[in-house]
């Protein structure tokens, strides 16, 4: 097992106008490094207040990709992956978001993602993590095949830079369904497209992440590790505007925080079972702490747990 430990930096940016200054980025990267993580996953964003949101913004802020990557390395980490949801607006491209379910938008998605793969290649990173499918309700008959075709096209483009596309399933996504996920994976080329297992997102959606991991281990090429104390048993994730009503507002139970550090008290994810599945697996396990009230605190708690989960000497 060669599980490399990464951390998602988007936990430091709770709002569009937070986390804008390079000194804030440096502090976050140092915290990540101090907690024993050697990789950092960036998250795509748009506009002048998201300087890490896309390669052009990084270059505008730091002078060049090379300068930014040098800074990251000096601090003791490396960029390991970039997360992009093509459904989000991109001001720079005058796009209000695109759907992988629409073949007419595949070419634009490929071109939109190309700079990310080139950036990752320069960083020596191998994973472009993408939102597999839009939210529940968007999927109608036949469109799953279109989505698979779209990801194959993105995968082929990414492969030109030596990068693999990895499909990430969040709890609001139409892919958070075992049957849909299996069909989507079946429709994509295993040489070009992999799967990111996100432990807490799957759990919230009522799936067993250990079962998903074991069922698709040959396709899993990236991990997002976080915990949760809750399952959306009422199916609030399926309702319109679930991102606001369920994820942000907490649904009828007014859950303040869906996601927790790995190993949290009352956590539902069986991480030892996850680790057991990874005995012969190699890749990046990116720890996350979305919705945390304190990113540094969460990184430290995740660092403590990560060492115990993956260090065979303990």
């Amino acid at each position: 097992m060669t599980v490399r430990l990464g951390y998602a930096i988007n936990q430091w940016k709770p709002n569009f106008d937070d986390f804008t200054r390079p000194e804030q980025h440096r502090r976050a990267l140092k915290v990540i490094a101090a907690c024993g993580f050697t990789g950092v996953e960036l998250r795509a964003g748009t506009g002048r207040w998201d300087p890490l949101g896309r390669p052009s913004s990084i270059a505008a802020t730091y002078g060049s990709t090379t300068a930014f990557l040098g800074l990251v390395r000096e601090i003791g980490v490396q960029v390991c992956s970039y997360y992009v949801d093509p459904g989000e607006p991109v001001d720079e491209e005058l796009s209000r978001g695109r759907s992988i379910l629409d073949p007419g938008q595949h070419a634009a998605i490929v071109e939109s993602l190309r700079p990310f793969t080139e950036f990752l290649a320069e960083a020596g990173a191998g994973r472009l993590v993408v939102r597999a499918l839009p939210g529940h309700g968007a999927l109608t008959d036949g469109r799953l095949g279109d989505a698979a075709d779209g990801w194959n096209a993105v995968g082929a483009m990414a492969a030109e830079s030596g990068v693999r596309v990895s499909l990430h399933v969040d709890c609001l996504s139409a892919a958070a369904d075992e049957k849909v996920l299996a069909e989507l994976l079946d429709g994509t080329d295993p040489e070009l497209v992999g799967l990111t297992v996100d432990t807490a997102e799957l759990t919230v959606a009522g799936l067993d992440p250990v079962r998903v991991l074991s069922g698709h281990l040959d396709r899993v090429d990236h991990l997002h590790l976080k915990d949760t104390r809750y399952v959306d048993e009422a199916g609030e994730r399926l309702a319109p505007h679930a991102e606001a009503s369920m994820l942000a507002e907490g649904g009828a139970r007014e859950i303040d925080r869906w996601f927790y550090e790995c190993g949290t008290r009352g956590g539902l994810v069986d991480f030892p079972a996850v680790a057991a599945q990874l005995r012969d697996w190699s890749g990046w396990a990116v720890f996350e702490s979305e919705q945390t009230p304190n990113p540094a605190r969460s990184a430290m708690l995740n660092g403590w747990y990560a060492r115990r989960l993956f260090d065979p000497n303990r």
Partner: protein
Amino acid sequence: MTALRWSYMDHWRADSPRGPVTQYTARRHMDDFVKQISAVGFEGLDMFDFQVFALTGMFGSVANYQDYLRDHGIDKIVNLFRGIMYDPRLADPHVRGTHDEIVESTRRMLGMWQALEIENLIVMPASLYTAAAPVTDDKIKAAAECWSRVGEMTLTEFGVRTTAHHEFFCAIRTESDIRKFYDWSDPRYVSFFCDTAQHCIAGLDPVALFLDLHERCSGFHFKDTRQVDTTEAYRHSPDAELMAPQTDRWFHEMGTEGGLVDFPRLMRAIRDTGYTGWITVEHDKANIGGDYAEATALSMWYARNVLSEICA
């Protein structure tokens, strides 16, 4: 860097639904605290001596607490800070008539920690500047006598060294008065504890002071500051540390932008003088415009990435 180990001086606050709390309020906060400091590489823990009461309530005994720490990667409680408010009517180092009480109360307190292998009892060697002024040689001599007595007791009865920590607002704060204090106290029983930021705020060079007193030095508080006291804040009554007009935050984590302490130079001095043992990182009042978790992680990033190379 095997000869040096990192300990953490606890002033921690955690966020909670009840607002900021210390880890002594609930076991779940304690669990998180210990995991967090362990995660970034600390192997030791320093704390105030009065926490014995909270720890006994939470764990049954301080020995149980130390076992718990070891289970979480923290090897031991290294140093205790004597949390005593000086009062000339009861206990004040420059008032000779109170020395018996200081010795006895210290004996009682250390007795509660007897099950552990504490290395240093850290004390402020004199009361607040404002409470002791004018500072005279006789007052410094009285303090030296006091801590020589205390130090003999702590070392012979408990195996604990007594070590003096000179806050910038403490009565023994200038270079010459500090020098006198060590000249007049018994070197067998009174050690020097170098708090980098406190000396810096007082206008002293902590590296030069360490080099001068290194044979007496038994530990460090590594913390930084961005300000020297330019307003005679040390005279501010009733308190200089939190209430002086000059700033609402004196202390920052090491490596902070604009920090005045030259830690690489200090580290070279530590290496060159052959100091071995524990170095304590402290974030005193980091919650004022900051955050304990972040400050702690940033400090250990600095220790590992900047300082460790010097002593590698």
